């Protein structure tokens, strides 16, 4: 069965087609929700975030620029920004830090082992997810930690340094080294995305 290309879907949304918005949600809503939940920590807030994010997608679909990345990447960016906005607005940083501390030894990759793959994502997506998990797991724990605090906690480098009681320079070095290593490990996914 031929799917509507994502760009066509977004163009339809920009023209005010509600069914296209529903289709976009069916394709990406679950992933957006999982991301939001990992950041905000509570179901109601995660749903609020996803509703906000798709509302923003609905309003700004006309500005989507395929040259800058995929539709999935666009939605991830919107969702993460909205989730971090909500966390900051509610002064909920402490909660994120608590969760990060709880994941201290295992990292975020740990619970994924038992988790079942979401049914609305294809095989390709499941493979991508496994590679991301494996790559994160390959990072030295201190590198993974600073990246997760930045990505899921929205902490700046100096905030991470204060949180971990490490020198700022160390945090910066670890972030960069970790991101470079991820870039190497994830290269198969990155090059495919660019094609």
């Amino acid at each position, binding site marked *: 069965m031929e799917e509507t290309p994502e760009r066509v879907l977004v163009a339809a949304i920009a023209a005010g087609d509600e069914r296209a918005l529903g289709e976009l949600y069916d394709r990406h809503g679950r992933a957006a929700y999982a991301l939001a939940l990992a950041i905000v920590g509570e179901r109601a807030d995660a749903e609020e975030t996803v509703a906000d994010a798709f*509302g923003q997608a609905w309003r700004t679909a006309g500005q989507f620029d395929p040259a800058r990345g995929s539709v999935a990447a666009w939605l991830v960016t919107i969702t993460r920004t909205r989730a971090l906005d909500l966390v900051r607005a509610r002064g909920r940083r402490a909660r994120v830090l608590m969760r990060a501390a709880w994941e201290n030894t295992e990292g975020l990759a740990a619970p994924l082992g038992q988790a079942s793959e979401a049914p609305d994502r294809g095989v390709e997506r499941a493979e991508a997810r496994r590679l991301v998990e494996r790559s994160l797991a390959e990072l030295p724990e201190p590198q993974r930690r600073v990246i997760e605090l930045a990505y899921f906690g929205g902490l700046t480098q100096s905030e991470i340094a204060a949180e971990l009681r490490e020198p700022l320079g160390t945090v910066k070095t670890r972030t960069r080294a970790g991101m470079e290593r991820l870039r190497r490990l994830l290269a198969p996914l990155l090059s495919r995305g660019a094609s």
Partner: protein
Amino acid sequence: MTDHQWSELTAPYALGVLDPQERTGFEAHLAECAACRSEVQSFRDVAVLLADSAPPAAPAPALRERILREARQVRPIASPRPPLVLWIAAAASVALALLAGNAYRTERAARRELEQAVARTRDSLAAEQQLVQILLAPDVNTAVLTAKGRPPAARLFWNPSRRRVVIAVFDLPPAPAGRIYQLWAIAAGKPVSLGVFNTRPDGRVTAAMDVPPDLAAFQVTAVTEEPAGGSPQPTQQPFLIGKLSGGE
């Protein structure tokens, strides 16, 4: 490769976690440095993939309908003619975003900020439009809430068809730490909680609350101060009381 002082900022910038001052300087640099731009882009691609490491989770099925419903409500705002005051609010927001800019900021960053300001304004417009719909319904009941012997502190709107209550508080200092205000409907002499709220430092707030489906009719509403999170039943005498009138 980027082998200079800026290279340590590419990853945190791509992750969206630079301090505002650092970001401003770095964006000025980005405008001139192709090597950093391409590095930022590659780290952004990595960051997008990191979303896949979030533990899988499924939203409530109702979320889909909520998103479509909210989309239906937002669209009219962009078209014909919103009330003048909303345009003024939008213009003010854009003007503020312009003032916040400075000489170093690239045009692109300024444009993004404008877009965000407009998006925020639209969000608050959508919320206000919902409020206005509740307030302007023909069957809406209103009440003025006062403390004995004092000027009115809040006004309440009860929309029976939508089963929503909106309380607009205009003169009530924020509850002390660990405490919160709770709004009650008094039905047949018994208080039923409608929800909790707190005021901003200026003593104002507007809050919308759902009325429980089993609450048939009520004439009196009251506000108490309760421990944070609210109480199943009031723990003190109400200090604001108002009787509903109008509608029907």
